[in-house]
């Protein structure tokens, strides 16, 4: 049997262990021998992006022998809404992280979590041009995009032909006509992942873009002023569109990108004819097909693209486009090698590889020629011909107002609420900021 002393030793050892376990939660930083670890979080959970970023990390390690890059891919919504905010708040865990820009970037910068890289990336900014704006705040640069594109309808050329549609629609009335033709042919016209909310909300964004003048949109973004009647008009146009019943069964619970039952999966497997989605959609579809059937991640051959149709007599700029991009920021506490890695990602070499992969549209001048996919070339042409590019409205307005907006729009999709309710919920949310 233990004597008293050894009992006390045992007890205090237990206490020390528990306290030590609590204190041991902090992460490890680079040691004194010049070795540096960069933790890199991105949303490319499927190929081609997953292997592309892994390759970039390994190449960077080769040219920087003192650096270890830990690449971690997370599901998009989880990464954006939970993991990154939590890591930033805790002040550790991530160095280079996915950055969607604008409203979100602003609140991160105001809290002091993002590294100011203005002086380090002057060459890159020249090569990128105007699309870098969402990654800048008050004249300083806090991140760089690696892709930027506009959205439009991705469609199945075979199904369009089957329904007797020769050319994709250019006006809203033609789109309505094509929806009827597809339905007559027994084809689901449009897949929408309203379960994830934002894919449904993008319809309203496009109707707002086509209804509101750029000046009104800019004022809405800077002052949260949604008093212009065009925002209600956007809801009315959307109501009309929903009433034409163009969507897949059960769209309210459909996700956007996960598996064959998602909206991207429905289009990729030929179960729906169209999907309104950003330039990344072929990459997502390729990933889903590879997961389902095995083999290489490759977008379906039948894919075509057309811009969101114009609306006769609407106030908005007809050549305006809705777009957005993905970028990366370095956290304020990241080692200086993080900026090097970011610059490497935006080098012509990596950007060209990105373009070749077909995952999206690279942003750096000199990498355009790498875009082999004719659809992406079309998206690029649309981007270049757009007189005004509006950033995704939820990104532009930030999570609070953007979240209320998306919920209001999904309610309209679900037959609850009115076009006025959407605007009112945005104003109410803006009042709580």
């Amino acid at each position, binding site marked *: 049997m233990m004597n008293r002393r050894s009992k006390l030793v045992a*007890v205090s050892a237990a*206490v020390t262990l528990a*306290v030590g376990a609590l204190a041991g939660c902090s992460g490890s930083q680079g040691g004194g021998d010049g070795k540096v670890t960069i933790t890199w979080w991105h949303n490319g959970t499927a190929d081609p992006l997953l292997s592309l970023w892994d390759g970039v990390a390994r190449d960077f390690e080769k040219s920087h022998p003192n650096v270890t890059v830990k690449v971690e891919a997370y599901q998009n919504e989880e990464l954006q809404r939970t993991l990154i905010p939590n890591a930033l708040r805790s002040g550790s865990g991530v160095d280079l992280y996915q950055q969607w820009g604008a409203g979100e970037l602003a*609140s991160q910068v105001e809290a002091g979590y993002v590294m100011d890289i203005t002086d380090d990336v002057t060459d890159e900014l020249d090569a990128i041009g105007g699309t870098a704006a969402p990654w800048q705040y008050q004249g300083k640069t806090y991140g760089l995009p690696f892709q930027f594109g506009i959205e439009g309808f991705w469609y199945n050329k075979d199904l369009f032909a089957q329904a007797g549609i020769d050319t994709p629609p250019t006006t809203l009335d033609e789109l309505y006509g094509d929806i009827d033709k597809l339905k007559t042919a027994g084809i689901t016209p449009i897949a929408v992942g309203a*379960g994830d909310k934002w894919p449904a909300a993008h319809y309203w964004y496009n109707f707002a873009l086509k209804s509101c003048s750029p000046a009104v949109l800019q004022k809405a973004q800077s002052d949260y002023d949604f008093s212009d009647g065009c925002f209600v008009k956007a809801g009315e146009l959307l109501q009309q569109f929903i009433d034409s019943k163009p969507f897949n*069964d059960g769209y309210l*619970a459909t996700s956007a990108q996960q598996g064959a*039952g998602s909206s991207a999966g429905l289009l990729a497997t030929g179960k729906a004819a169209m999907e309104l989605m950003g330039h990344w959609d072929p990459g997502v579809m390729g990933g889903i097909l590879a997961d389902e059937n095995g083999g290489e991640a490759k977008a379906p051959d039948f894919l075509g693209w057309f811009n969101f149709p114009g609306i006769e007599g609407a106030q908005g700029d007809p050549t305006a486009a809705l777009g957005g991009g993905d970028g990366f920021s370095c956290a304020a506490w990241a080692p200086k090698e993080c900026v090097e890695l970011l610059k490497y990602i935006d080098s012509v070499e990596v950007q060209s590889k990105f373009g070749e992969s077909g995952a999206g549209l690279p942003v750096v001048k000199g990498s355009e020629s790498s875009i082999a996919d004719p659809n992406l070339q079309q998206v690029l042409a649309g981007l270049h011909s757009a007189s005004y590019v509006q950033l995704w409205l939820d990104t532009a307005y930030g999570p609070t107002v953007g979240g*209320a907006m998306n919920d209001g729009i999904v*309610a309209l999709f679900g037959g609850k609420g009115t076009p006025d309710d959407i605007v009112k919920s945005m104003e109410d949310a803006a009042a709580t900021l």
Partner: protein
Amino acid sequence: MTAAPLTRPLRRSRRRGRALIIGFLAPALVVYLTFVLLPVGLAAVYSFFNWNGLSALDRFIGFDNYARALADPVFQGAIGHNLAIVGLSLLIQGPIAIGVALLLNRPLRGRTIIRLLIFVPYVLSEVIAGLAWKLLLQPDGPVDGVLQGMGLGGVVQLWLADQNVVFWTLFFVLCWKYLGFAIILFLAGLQGVPDELSEAAQIDGATWWQTQRHITIPLLGPTIRIWAFLSIIGSLQLFDMVWILTGGGPVNATTTMATYMVQYGFQRSQLGYGSAVAVILFIVSLIFALLYQRFILRRDFGASLTRGVS
């Protein structure tokens, strides 16, 4: 009898005993303080601020967050869903679980296998079970296929997308997931019911049903009351299955207090408001727990119950 003054060795051993108690308690206490009481306290502090989680904590707004939450129809709906799940779980899961447990308590061929199968859903992780059901229930998915194969194509619904159906779909999945736990609990309780009583009742001419009704179920009372307590608290704090299966949608048809909290606190980046919702959820659960212990568990625990909440 008069108490003799404590002798020195006895006093020393008492002191030693106290040191031991404190020593062995300390690790658990440290963990409890750090991971339970401190976060609860911090949430209470945050709930009085308009705070987006990134900026400094400097915009004190009093009880505004609480007023906003309680006035929000979506949050009211969430509370309603929680209470509905509490009530339905007690009324539907309870009787089914008792019935199945009574049946499984009789000698039956393959009883072990049946018990195992019934318990499997409970052992599965919430996320895996939720994702599996999400895939099974998608339009034209396996569930619809099976129903059509059985000639029941008419009952096929948009299980997760129809706002009038989704709550019942969710409740069905919850029953599937948690019935096993209730049944195992009741089976364990039935082990404590002595066979002699039912044998005596049989000799006196009681039917099987009378035996269950007047002997087994009353003796199962403490187990039923504990299960109901766990079920109520679990229903109030329900999160993972809802989050995976429906995300609280479509159009807030299945929000619970916890999904509302995550949606507004994290996704809309209003951590002060989310904290206020968390505090409301905490208070509601606490009131339920205390009242239940005070009035219903009292006879099982005797006088000790108002002293501690497990």
